């Protein structure tokens, strides 16, 4: 069984994000980039399935500029068998990514496609769901546990009320939640080995996908600064402020 995992190159989670002065987006020049943490969880899950003997091949896919190769190398260093970059300098929105991933899925025919539930840059939380709609495959989002047996996937999902466990048929799209696993470290010997693993490059044109943005970003602004706090004399004064000023109780 083949597993595909999608990888997004995002601003590293340790970086303090700054909005560009013209308000068109966030600054990404000279900023540390790394793999979207939810995608790391996706890679880890695929690797565990391979180590358990369920999956035979793990293929990492990324869509974006040439620099995404670096992020794919990290996926290879984690243990993916090979990687595919759909290279484009166009701004990619979730629907475009879903279409590209569908095109790759058509070529690769995986039984399971594991996707991070969302990327930490735009927090869209759409790609997995749209990919499921486009492929017509079953989907299980926000997975915190995944078991595969007899051609079915049993997935525990994190939902508002608690945990929901569902059984779906394969092929399927799984989106990962935070508690699915704790990703392993990339080790130095594996970084070296990853250099020899195949990394193929495709283009949206070759896949016949129109990736033109359909949504327009009007303005990006910094969150408003937190206002200074105030000290109150006693609990009664606090209750009074909460009730009459903040109007939250």
């Amino acid at each position, binding site marked *: 069984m083949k597993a595909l995992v999608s990888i997004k190159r995002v601003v590293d989670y340790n970086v303090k994000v700054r909005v560009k002065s013209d308000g068109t987006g966030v600054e990404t020049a000279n900023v540390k980039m*790394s793999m979207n943490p939810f995608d790391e969880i996706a890679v880890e899950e695929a690797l565990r399935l391979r180590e358990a003997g369920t999956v035979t091949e793990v293929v990492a896919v990324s869509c974006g500029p040439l620099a995404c190769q*670096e992020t794919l*190398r*990290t996926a290879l*260093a984690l243990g993916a068998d090979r990687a595919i970059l759909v290279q484009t300098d166009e701004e990619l929105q979730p629907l475009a990514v879903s279409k590209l991933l569908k095109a790759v899925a058509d070529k690769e025919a995986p039984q399971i496609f594991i996707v991070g539930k969302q990327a930490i840059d735009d927090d869209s939380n759409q790609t997995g769901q749209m990919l499921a709609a486009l492929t017509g495959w079953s989907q299980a989002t926000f997975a915190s546990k995944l078991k595969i047996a007899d051609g079915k996937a049993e997935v525990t999902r994190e939902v508002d009320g608690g945990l929901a466990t569902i059984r779906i048929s394969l092929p399927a799209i799984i989106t990962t939640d935070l508690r699915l696993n704790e990703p392993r*470290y*990339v080790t*130095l010997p594996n970084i070296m080995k990853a250099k020899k693993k195949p990394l193929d490059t495709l283009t949206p044109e070759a896949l016949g996908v129109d990736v033109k943005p359909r949504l327009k970003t009007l303005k990006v602004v910094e969150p408003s600064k937190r206002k200074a706090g105030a000290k109150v004399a006693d609990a009664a004064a606090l209750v009074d402020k909460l009730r009459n000023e903040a109007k939250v109780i």
Partner: protein
Amino acid sequence: MNSPDEDQILDAISRWLERDVRPQVKELEHADRYPESMVATMKEFGLFGATIPREYGGLGLPAGTYSKIVTRISEVWMSLTGIFNSHLIMASAVTRFGTEAQKEAFLPRFASGELRGGLALTEPDCGTDLQAIRTRAVRDGDDYVINGTKTWISNGIHGSCFALLVKTDLEAEPRHRGMSLFLAEKGPGFTVSRKLEKIGYKGIDSAELIFDNYRVPASSLIGEAEGRGFHHALGGLELGRINVAARGVGVANAALKDSVRYAQLRKTFGKPICEHQAIQLKLGEMATRCEAARLLVENAARIYDAGERCDMEAGMAKYFASEAALENSTEAMRIHGAYGYSTELDVERYYRDAPLMCIGEGTNEMQRIIIARQLVARNPA
């Protein structure tokens, strides 16, 4: 600038440091406990083979990349680097001077971390003046029989193989022609007499080793020729000094980073102390030292990687970076005030760790003499 490879390597190391090392440093350091689980991860990471050639199972990293790894780890816990530094210098002696059979027998086991250890050069009566060592090896058939005492041996307790410097000829003139370097694996006659207590550099074991009629096969004599040991030992010291310099950069950086942060949080007279000139002067000097020390290390590593003689440059890097660590840790303590003196924060650890780099791997007094001698030799009047 780092290469993309270096970025990936340093990124991998940093993740481990932040997730598994930083949260545990204080406890392990204060208890002076050996970091078993970290050593296991370091094995997985290939650090015990970092500079060992790839054909023998190592990563084959150049000194430039390696020194950046050392700096990065030292920014979090300097002691950890001691677990593989002298181990790799032992390995470099085998790589550079060993026979093919010795390389095949030892390097893969060194690289995997299965066999770990370090250098056994220093004796109770001599360190910097290595030619004065008294440990003796006497040939007996296919073996050598070794008697003597070594001290301040890093990894002495947890390691199992050491590059052991001995005298094979007491009469030789000059004295260094009578010295030889052996690969000594622990066995009968090789005992650890005690763990040495130190003010810093905790967690890693420094020990006294006793050799009492310890037998080692003649095939363990590096290069299988007597009289070259001094040369072999010194050959490793260039890399050793780059190592120690890189540690110095790490400690100096850590002291600076903590200070910059604290100076913005701590307020006196109505403003953060980073807005007072007294603190700004300190921060300005500390940052400049860090940058200068880093550049000296990079320069020495570049010359080392080019295969050229770099004792002067490595000496400069070692001298300057270790003093930078010492000065920055002292200034960090002043900036932190009472909190710097408290054992709750990390500053006190930098303060205890920094002097090691000034003393170890050839004292800083010796470094300046080496620099001066080279300066004269390279510029004859």
